[in-house]
């Protein structure tokens, strides 16, 4: 087939739709939308081969605002619908948009299985630790003691850590980003796209109306250098304004600790080097919380294996190559008889 290649390089504006964006003014989702549109332009995405699938919630309005194909589905079920899209047409580039309620409460089971199966898609989970669209109830990622309309005396249940859930479910790619980190996020999303399999990206997103500033203790720009660490494969995990803080693996405690280069005889050699293929390391990194530790962002874990959709289609191709599809023969298999 002769296809005309569009020589005009698309910009992020080409991925904007004619629909009015209807999130609250100041919502973190605006920044994420911009980051995604930039990513699509940067990676040279083909709009007609790109599909955004979402569930229900504030984040799930996302597909209406991206000039590609989109399917705004039902609460919690986007991973299953996106799996169906990939099984029908593995050539499509599927991006899944979900939130902490949609993806980890009502849809927790589907999230578990889409990750376990390793279906080739990018799963962006916008975590704002609250239910926005239903007006402020606590979510499965809300900190214990969160006061909300449904928990006036404070929530009593323990929250889960999305990235830890993803690793536990068997995800082969786990990353974390922050809504307003427009410099870092497109790079992380591009890596997610590059990964063949289910790529899980937790995006910490501020809900300005119902849970404002919940991440402020580590997202404030002026303190970010001391409160966040952007990990890179093969690089020592150093952070801080002075670039003198780092993560050290304490063998006796089998735990990570923060150290300062130049103090107590610590040198750069004592700083743990990030290995994104090391699952155990990833598990430790995703659990680090501020202010005791820097919050880990970037590609935390990436260890590719064959994707589910590739494996499924391989079986289909093998069957097609080895067996003739002769329907009349199929229904005559086994014992038949003739009435004269």
């Amino acid at each position, binding site marked *: 087939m002769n296809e005309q290649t569009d020589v005009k390089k698309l910009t992020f504006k080409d991925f904007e*739709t004619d*629909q009015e964006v209807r999130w609250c003014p100041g919502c973190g989702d605006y920044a994420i939308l911009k980051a995604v549109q930039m990513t699509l332009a940067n990676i040279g995405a083909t*709009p*007609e*081969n790109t*599909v*955004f*699938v979402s569930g229900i919630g504030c984040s799930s309005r996302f*597909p*209406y605002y991206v*000039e*590609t*194909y*989109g*399917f*705004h*589905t*039902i609460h919690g*079920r986007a*991973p*299953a*619908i*996106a*799996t*169906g*899209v*990939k*099984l*029908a*047409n593995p*050539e*499509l580039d599927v991006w899944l948009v979900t939130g902490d309620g949609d993806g980890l409460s009502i849809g927790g*089971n*589907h999230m*578990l*299985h889409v990750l376990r199966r390793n279906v080739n898609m990018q799963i962006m989970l916008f975590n704002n630790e609250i239910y926005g669209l239903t007006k402020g109830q606590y979510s499965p990622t809300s900190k214990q003691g969160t006061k909300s309309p449904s928990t006036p005396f404070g929530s009593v249940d323990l929250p889960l850590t999305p990235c830890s859930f993803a690793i536990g479910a068997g995800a082969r790619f786990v990353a974390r980003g922050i809504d307003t980190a427009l410099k870092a996020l497109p790079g992380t999303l591009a890596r997610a796209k590059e990964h063949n399999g289910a790529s899980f990206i937790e995006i910490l997103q501020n809900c300005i109306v119902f849970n404002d500033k919940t991440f402020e203790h580590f997202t404030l720009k002026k303190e970010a250098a001391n409160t966040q660490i952007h990990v890179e494969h093969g690089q020592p995990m150093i952070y801080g304004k002075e670039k003198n803080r780092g993560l050290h693996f304490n063998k006796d405690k089998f735990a990570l600790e923060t150290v300062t280069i130049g103090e107590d005889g610590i040198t750069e050699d004592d700083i743990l080097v990030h290995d994104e293929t090391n699952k155990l390391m990833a598990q430790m990194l995703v659990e680090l919380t501020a202010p005791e530790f820097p919050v880990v962002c970037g590609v935390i874990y990436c260890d590719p294996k064959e994707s589910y959709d590739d494996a*499924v*289609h391989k*079986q*289909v191709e*093998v*069957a*097609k190559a*080895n*067996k*003739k*599809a002769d*329907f*009349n023969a*199929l*229904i*005559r298999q*086994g*014992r*038949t*008889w*003739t*009435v*004269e």
Partner: protein
Amino acid sequence: MNVQTTAQNFDELDSVCVRFAGDSGDGMQLTGDQFSVVTALEGSDLSTFPDFPAEIRAPVGTTFGVSAFQINFGSVEVSTAGDEPDVLVAMNPAALKVSLEGLRKGGVIVVDEGAFNKRNLDKAGYEENPLENDSLSDYQVQKLDITKMTLESVKEFGLGKKDAIRSKNMWTLGLILWMFGRQRKPITDWLEQKFKKIPDVANANIAAVNAGHAYGETAEVSSNLRRYHVGRHTTEEAGEYRTVNGNQALAWGLVAGSQLGDIPLMLGTYPITPASALLHTLSELKEYGVVTFQAEDEIAAVCGAIGASFAGQLGVTSSSGPGIALKTEAIGLAISAELPLVIVDVQRAGPSTGLPTKTEQSDLYQAVWGRNGDAPIVVLSASNPHDCFDVGIEAVRLATKYMTPVMVLSDGYIGNASEPWKIPDITKMEKFTVKHHTDPEGFHPFLRDPETLARVWAKPGTPGLLHRVGGIEKDYDSGHISYDAANHQKMSDVRAAKIDGIANDIPLQSVSLGDQGGKLAVVGWGSTRGAIHQAVKRARAEDIDVSHVHIDNIWPLPRNLEEVLNSYDNVIVAEMNKGQMNNLLRAQYLLDAHLLSKVSGQPFKITEILDCIREQAGVSK
């Protein structure tokens, strides 16, 4: 059973009903299946009824662990698995106990005497051995120590006792083959093939079949074992035939639909009794481009199918009542987004878990009305095993032509039951090639065909047709989300009109037996077809003015149905639920019908319907 002794010492029968009953580990389903195949190969009409417990291996010897297989076969059209067995094969006391009630008085009982020991009698709840008192004096009882004779017949193969005893179903089959003068070769060929890798087991089973058969030959003179002959069913159309069960036929029908529509099929499903066989069958057909997705749950199963339909394939999902309930919200999404989807409901007795292995027709309300909002879909029903094939094709045709979910109602009875089927030739069947929209000119995703009201199907990957759809109401003229009041009215109206209009694209209601107009009609739908047909046939032979109207299109209903129903003075609606079709017809046509309801987990007996016909016709027995 109409008996006539022939010269060859066979009693000639028009039809006969045999029930094999034993422990769930005794291999009764296999025995019944194989007997059915041989019966079919010799040209008798037949209908089977596998009747088994929900437990895979219930405790040995218990009444609730009895697994039975009933086959009705004849040189005449049989169409049901038979009201009353003429021959009962009981492999243990529990099997005798639970099957005796339905047996015809004067019928033959073949029992394995060796299994009637104290332990088994106690487990079955017999205080005395029924073989040693006169409790079975109404029947012709053949007491045979099948266990012992089986062990002797397989001795030379050196199997352990447990394995050796497992051949007793084959010994029994050998005897029954002799009793009906049926060939052994198809069975021994099958055993050789099945146990190709363990020749000792193959040979032992073949020896058991032969020994059972030989026992019949040699015992004939000394005992009162009789032989029966059931001839060919000569009124069948010429052609090539096979046996087929409903689940298999439905799976093949869906693939045939996919071939005729040239639209690849993706099945998203989750295992559930009695629908799992659809997954098993379709997962083997990858060379037809069929992709099967065993999802994490029923919801993911239907969602996977909807995702596939969004991407341009035909999504199919299959389940039974409880699973369909879980899929409900997602079906609403497919209705709102107007995507094709085939939903198969192999119904079972409910509510909740109900009786998983027993049949019922109680999902009609769920199928027609069971969703939030005004959410019309197409509902089709299958009325016997081979009809499942045609219904599968029709479901694919309607779903793709009208961009709508289509629910197919089958049930546990026809799903598992086998019947002869005249094998069709797909090259002679009408094609209905499905087209995806490709023209960007004036495109929006809810552009409709003015005739069918179906929206265009624009699949991702097509340049120039980028769009977003979802479960929020769409604007009629652009497909964008819309909260406008008048628009919601218009969209609700058009969704309903689209489904209603399908009444013009389905067959008119016919009268399946008898005349349009008259004193009485029996109305049925789904798997009750065979029993109603036979009951109406017998009633007409008694000069009762009664006809049979069988409804295959449940929603929309055929456009002349009201006229057909109104042409009778009186209508009986016979169904295996508490009156769901009866209420549907009342709601649609203010029809005041007499309900014949049965919810015992068992199909209708012909006599149950016949009695009701006589009563409604004012005829006493």
